[in-house]
């Protein structure tokens, strides 16, 4: 099923400079009980964001009005752990369309690409610069351009290119999904299945 197209995103960004942010932090398991994909944003980073009595934790970045935007900037090895796509859904549902980090866990990255959230991997030096700039001025705009595969910081010389394979890039630019592609291969899949030994 098609999702939002992604070409250029220019937005302020939310900094979360913690390493190894795992999917249990992004969305704890007790919120995975839904049978529909709806409402996960409310529980994004639930236990970092709220006390057990549901009072917001003031020192957590999502509760700080200074920082907002459609880009989440996370520390190295973002999205490790569980394969739950709910983590990517929560990020999307909260309003983020792009996550920037210096390293992503594999399954999380795939999940993002499959639902139209762009994972952007940059060097750790550039990541440091982005954090620095946002902390200095939370209204700093970050531009992620998928067509030219670049990340820029407004009002600064700094920019970097990122990698994405042509197939996925094309999907993101046009909002295509893999299933549409695969359904067109159905006949070859069926004949292939007859040849497999298992």
């Amino acid at each position, binding site marked *: 099923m098609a999702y939002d197209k992604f070409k250029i995103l220019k937005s302020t960004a939310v900094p979360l400079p913690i390493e190894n942010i795992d999917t*249990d932090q992004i969305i704890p398991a007790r919120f995975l*009980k839904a049978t529909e994909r709806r409402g996960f944003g409310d529980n994004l980073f639930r236990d970092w964001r709220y006390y057990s009595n549901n009072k917001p934790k003031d020192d957590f970045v999502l509760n700080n009005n200074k920082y907002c935007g459609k880009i989440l900037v996370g*520390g190295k090895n973002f999205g490790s752990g569980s394969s739950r796509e709910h983590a990517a859904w929560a990020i999307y549902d909260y309003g983020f369309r792009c996550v920037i980090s210096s390293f*992503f866990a594999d399954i999380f990255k795939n999940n993002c690409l499959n639902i139209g959230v762009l994972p952007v991997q940059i060097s750790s030096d550039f990541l440091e610069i982005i954090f620095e700039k946002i902390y200095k001025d939370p209204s700093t705009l970050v531009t992620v351009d998928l067509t030219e595969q670049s990340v820029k910081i407004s009002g600064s010389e700094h920019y970097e290119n990122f990698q994405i394979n042509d197939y996925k890039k094309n999907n993101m630019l046009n909002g295509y999904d893999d299933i549409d592609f695969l*359904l067109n291969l159905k006949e070859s*899949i069926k004949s292939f299945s007859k040849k497999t030994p298992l």
Partner: protein
Amino acid sequence: MSKTLFDKVWDSHVIKKINNGPDVLFIDRHMVHEVTSPVAFLGLKKRNIKVLFPEKTFATADHNTPTRNQHLPVKDYLSSKQLEALEKNAQYHGISYWGLGHEKNGIVHVIGPEHGITLPGATIVCGDSHTSTHGAFGAIAFGIGTSEVEMVLSTQCIMQPKPKKMRININGKLNDSVTPKDVALFIISKLSTSGATGYFVEYSGKVFSEMSMEGRMTVCNLSIEMGARGGMIAPDNKTFDYIKGREFAPQNGEWDEVMKYWKTLKSDDDADFDKEYDFDGTKIEPMITYGTNPGMGIAINSGIPYSNQHGGNIETFQKSLDYMNYSQGDKILGKKIDFVFLGSCTNGRIEDFRAFTNIVKGRKKSPNVTAWLVPGSHRVEKAIKEEGLLNILNQSGFELREPGCSACLAMNDDKIPTGKYAVSTSNRNFEGRQGPGSRTLLASPIVAAAAAITGKVTDPRDL
């Protein structure tokens, strides 16, 4: 051209290669559970299509199920809705469904091998990252997200770029009280939780060839904790003996045919790996974790590292110790614990219960410890009873619960309370993984048993 085990299995399943894009990979076996499948089935409904190969799809209920009174209706409303949804979906699409109470029910990665669904040379996926478990049989097995579950249900294929190849060789004889879990925690502590991201791992060497199938499953299960897509071990006679005669395994004439193929499933002598590690098995000690990711493991008789010895970011390291309420340099032995969890797809098989029972036999559970012993499946539960382990456990003050994922992810009522410490045989010690505010120390069934007896972190060799 010479090939690795991984190449052989992967390449033989590629239907189509996309230039500068992923491979279209055919999937032989798809395991489905109640938590990551409902939205995928909804997707099929929206597209108005049915499951392409229901006979290659197997469904069970495990993540969200109670471990007590499974014969009664499930109390939690949302959980019962998920179970209902899976049952209906399975029925509608003609998929075998082993729901609560079914004699084949259990944790998805425990029942696959038990029933001969897991086979050498197969591609196996499931919406759970520990699908890597099945690699113990020489299968390519990995976890997928819900969009991909929908992909496999509707087309039996997945689109993935081929991962790079890593081999981890461990030779030498393992020391007393060192189990497959310790081997895995040792490797992760060396490579870190992202050290194998982008790779598919093959484990090789004497340590693995001498390991039981259960042990190999434990090791492959934990591959994901170092970021790997999956891990695998070349099948050998142990593998074939394990599979033979199981319900879904090839039978009679088919068996001889498939054996010819299975015997070719090993890396060629001169095959190339993108990365290779060698470790000395004799250097591995019983392990335990002290922090909030599985890479934060140490030999049980050593101390928590100082921040400057630890490779990563200092603030993240400190945040982790604060969460655990531990300090740098602390000895881990003697730390007080409150809970013990024996179970999960990592260590919930019969061999794990044997090892645990062997330690607690003739001893009494510490009155300060709450112990949850949760078999990985009904088959395991049955074996525990038939082998007389249950009696011994009862005499030592332990009870057995009913099968399921339980406190591994604490979606059901089995939650470790805030601030409490659990020695757990599961696979993740993330903040709040076993319940909001819970503190997890990952270890082997033997180390868990020793802790259950003394109420503190204890070297099983000192008992």
